[in-house]
């Protein structure tokens, strides 16, 4: 099944088959410690070096700019925490950033939330007014719940004018991320390119100031305790993802457009997050008025679509999605479609044929 809808924070597609094979081989052979000078250690070191070079190249970064992390969720908080003057200088973040980024405000004496409009775009004027020299700004490349992308070129222009630190959460864009002319730190998660969970990439721009905030005795930028087999699988998955993307990006975009247009035309009272020009080509978020997400999920499940939702009643949280709330969109009756490269056009055709009937039936009940 090529369609999934994201859980509260992260959609995860199955591991790419080639990456899975690498992972199995790597675990079968057993992996030596690459810091030891045994022949297996040297082999592991060489493979790891190749993987790092491959990941850097795929993400259009220098090898010296990337570090692999075994606990991807920690990357953004640590990237922000290690920025010069974090804690005393203003910490500025967008209202639709991931919760663990917003949570960093507790560690800063001054923090400012930049609001977003109904289209999900951050208020650039407010950002420009709020920025001060040495501020730390955290702005996402795209949002995992809605697919809404930010105008990073404009953000970078505002941040560079104050010589501030710009951290970009690229976990939703993954390999679709396009570097703006100015940035300081980046966060990627291998899951975004169908790699394994448990591997993330932290990037620090060459020349940018940053220091590892974790206790350490050697001058390292990362703990380097990640799993080597997972790192190799992540590099392989990324290469394959890029090849698949080249073959499928136009198709995914047109499938999402089909969903957008069909839903708009056939179902009244629906909030669709963002617009076609400023959202990722594979994600769409739909919120139906007077619909219980729980019932919607169950009804789609009967038809063979395994979907989830960000609405409070499904995410087993009382609080509704902070992302939909910040955008002023309906938080109930939400479903998110997140397309993988292997989605069949027929799956979307079937979903679109069923959806209007399911919604009107649920609304009548």
């Amino acid at each position, binding site marked *: 099944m090529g369609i999934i809808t994201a859980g509260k924070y992260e959609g995860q597609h199955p591991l790419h088959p080639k990456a899975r094979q690498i992972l199995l081989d790597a675990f079968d052979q057993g992996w030596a410690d690459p810091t030891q000078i045994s022949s297996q250690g040297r082999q592991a070191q060489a493979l790891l070096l190749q993987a790092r070079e491959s990941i850097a190249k795929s993400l259009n970064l220098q090898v010296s700019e990337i570090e692999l992390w075994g606990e991807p969720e920690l990357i953004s908080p640590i990237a922000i925490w290690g920025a010069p003057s974090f804690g005393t200088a203003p910490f500025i973040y967008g209202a639709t950033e991931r919760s663990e980024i917003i949570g960093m405000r507790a560690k800063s004496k001054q923090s400012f939330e930049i609001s977003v409009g109904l289209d999900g775009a951050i208020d650039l004027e407010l950002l420009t007014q709020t920025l001060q020299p040495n501020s730390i700004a955290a702005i996402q490349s795209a949002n995992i719940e809605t697919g809404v992308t930010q105008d990073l070129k404009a953000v970078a222009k505002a941040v560079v004018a104050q010589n501030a630190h710009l951290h970009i959460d690229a976990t939703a864009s993954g390999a679709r991320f396009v570097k703006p002319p100015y940035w300081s730190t980046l966060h990627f998660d291998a899951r975004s390119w169908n790699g394994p969970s448990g591997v993330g990439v932290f990037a620090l721009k060459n020349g940018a100031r940053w220091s590892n905030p974790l206790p350490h005795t050697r001058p390292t930028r990362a703990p380097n305790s990640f799993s080597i087999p997972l790192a190799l699988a992540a590099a392989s998955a990324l290469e394959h993802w890029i090849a698949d993307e080249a073959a499928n990006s136009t198709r995914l975009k047109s499938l999402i457009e089909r969903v957008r247009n069909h839903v708009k035309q056939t179902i009244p*009272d629906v*909030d669709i997050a963002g617009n076609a020009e400023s959202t990722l080509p594979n994600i769409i978020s739909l*919120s139906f*008025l*007077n*619909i*219980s*997400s729980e019932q919607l999920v169950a009804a789609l499940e009967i038809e063979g679509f395994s979907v989830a939702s960000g*609405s*409070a*009643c499904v995410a087993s949280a*009382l*609080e*509704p999605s902070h992302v*939909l*709330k910040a955008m*002023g*969109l*309906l*938080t*109930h*009756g939400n479903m998110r479609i997140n397309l993988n490269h292997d989605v069949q056009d027929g799956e979307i055709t079937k979903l679109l044929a069923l959806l209007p009937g399911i919604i009107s039936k649920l609304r009548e009940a």
Partner: protein
Amino acid sequence: MVAELDCRGKRCPLPIIELSKKIKESEVGQEVLLISDDPATAADLNAWARMTGNEFIVISADNFLITKSN
């Protein structure tokens, strides 16, 4: 005369569904006092008002006065 709609203890999206029903049955100009302690209600009322063209004011954390406007 303000109609009262007590949705305390009801979880999202029930308060909005019940409000939609109440408003549908009402005449233009009718005011409805919605009492809801669900944390999604305040956010969803904004979206509901925008989508349906009705108006509301927040009286307190769980009291909302809605006016049927069209």
